[in-house]
């Protein structure tokens, strides 16, 4: 290639790159307020994503948590089904038939004691504990591994509430969070869930295929001053107690001070926000 042509191609190449890159640079530095809003946005998201802990910032923020009083559930097993049903109906959760169990989506569900509490001994367990199903759900950890691994910040710990929440618009469906969660709390939409939704709540969207979902502590209900659907469903029995575990005066803290509670997989270092009275 002769030198003239090389020079021309080099200049053309650089100009093309500049032409393509210019709008992006202009957008990134456009109005000062937009830029700083993005920066503040990014910073607060970054703070949340970095290890996912809020305590490092030293601010007194909320951390919603739940106490599951298994004594009440063991006395009255239908309460568990009521709680699960309320969640399914409030969030348009699909229910797949048994032959499609691999695609199942569950936000709160029942499992055995030894499945829920793998770090506790499960031999010579009392008969009652052994035959009782235990309710498990996302623990909304203080140090959530799922948040740490998400490559797009589609799942992140919400600063004001301590809830580990999902942005379904951003999730790319890589399922790294599902691999990372020590508790198996997350489900993936392996296909379009709509054909399997039995009951639609008109104020809540469905999810599309290809995104991960899990319990959200009913953020949309909390914003209206309501308790999560599962808690409300068993309100009279007091089997589920919900509140801010950072607030010493809350009901849930009184319960935690009075009763001995256990948590799932404490050695994972995640500091869950869900406690069990067995």
């Amino acid at each position, binding site marked *: 290639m002769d030198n003239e042509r090389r020079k021309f191609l080099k200049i053309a190449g650089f100009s093309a790159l500049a032409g393509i890159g210019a709008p992006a640079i202009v957008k990134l530095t456009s109005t000062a307020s937009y830029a700083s809003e993005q920066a503040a946005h990014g910073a607060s998201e970054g703070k949340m994503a970095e290890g996912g802990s809020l305590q490092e910032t030293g601010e007194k923020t909320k951390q919603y948590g739940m106490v599951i009083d298994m004594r009440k559930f063991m006395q009255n097993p239908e309460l568990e089904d009521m709680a699960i049903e309320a969640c399914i109906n409030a969030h348009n959760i699909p229910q797949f038939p048994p032959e499609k169990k691999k695609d199942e989506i569950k936000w709160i569900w029942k499992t055995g004691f030894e499945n829920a509490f793998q770090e506790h001994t499960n031999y010579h367990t009392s008969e009652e504990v052994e035959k009782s199903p235990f309710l498990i759900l996302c623990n909304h950890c203080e140090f959530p*591994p799922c948040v740490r691994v998400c490559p797009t910040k589609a799942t992140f710990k919400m600063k004001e509430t301590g809830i580990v929440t999902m942005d379904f618009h951003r999730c790319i469906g890589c399922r790294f969070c599902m691999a990372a969660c020590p508790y198996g709390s997350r489900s993936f939409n*392996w296909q379009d869930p709509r054909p399997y939704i039995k009951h639609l709540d008109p104020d809540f969207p469905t999810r599309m295929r290809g995104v991960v979902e899990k319990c959200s502590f009913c953020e949309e209900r909390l914003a209206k001053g309501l308790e999560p659907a599962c808690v409300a469903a068993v309100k009279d029995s007091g089997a589920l107690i919900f509140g801010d575990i950072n607030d010493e005066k809350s009901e849930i803290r009184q319960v935690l001070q009075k009763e001995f509670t256990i948590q799932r997989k404490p050695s994972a270092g995640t500091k869950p926000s869900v406690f069990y009275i067995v």
Partner: protein
Amino acid sequence: MFEKSLKGKPAYWIWLAFLGVFIVIGAVCYVRQYLFGLGLTGMSRDVSWGLYISQFTYLVGVAAGGLMLVLPYYIHDYKAFGKITILGEFLAISAVIMCLLFVMVDIGQPLRAMNMILHPTPNSMLFWDMVVLLGYLSLNIICGWVILTAERKQVPPPKWVYIFVYISIPWAVSIHTVTAFLYSGLPGRHFWLSAIIAPRFLASAFAAGPALVVIACLIMKRVAGFDAGKKALDKVATIIMYAALINTFFVLLEFFTAYYSNVPGHIESLRYLFFGITENGHTYNNLVPFMWTGVFLNFLSLGMFAYLKFREGNDWILGGACAAIFIALWIDKGLGFVLGGFVPSMTGHITEYYPTANEIGLTVGIWATGFFVMTVLYKIAIGVEHEIE
């Protein structure tokens, strides 16, 4: 230099057409999967990563293996590798392309893949994996192409390309370390939560990558008149043998830690993989035959490599040993390591994983794409080699 790949013997075109068939089948499988969703695969809520990510994990290693051909030549001036460094670099390009394809077909919302770039998340290892893989791809394309062009013109390569060559050497280590970090930092899965995952990955990478290059060299000696040189192949065989030996040692170390400590979290996955787990009347052991085949092939290949050291072997033994270790490591890393981490599930349940036909079709299609790219690139490399002779 692409014109070198446009002229070839009938065997060359028949091979490309053969691969093309599988590529088309894979494309059809992908369209079906794209339209329905990943439910068309055998993955489930418990086994949320399957064949695609396991192939990705293995192929990152194969790509990193190219390092073992580049390092001796550029850092230690081992002139005998002069003809095959380009093969290592071109193998890396093909393998990284396969990795990227496997990731793209595995994510649930592929159209949102740009979110990883629009919203960079430094605390996520998957973000860094994307960065280092794209970087490694670029490095190998730059180095391979520039140096091959220089060779063709019979001039020394320009000085600036050596910066990229020297960067590519630790970078190769980084791609597989970061991929290992995907697994070894997850607090819930004890089968993966081990510091030795990264060294194990690297050891198996340095065996698997060069093994594929050796097989390619042996084939090209017969069909394309390309002789890598006995000294070079012997040295690569030695490297593969030691890397495979170290990897075997590392795997055995895992067995010791698990079974001697008797900690259930460490044992359960190994038990499922190698012996099967029986509970509630069900026996879960669909990976057991694979794992033991892998063990057999691993020791068989080690034996064959050792034989080659003491007796004057022939190309068939060398090729056989390389094929055996390539398959053994594919089983160990692809099937065993990735799938084993999901059994038992985080609630102690066992869900077995059976890939569907569509999934296998797509997997084979992507492998065929990788071999296609590798064939074309190798044809160019040999074409240049013949030209300068």
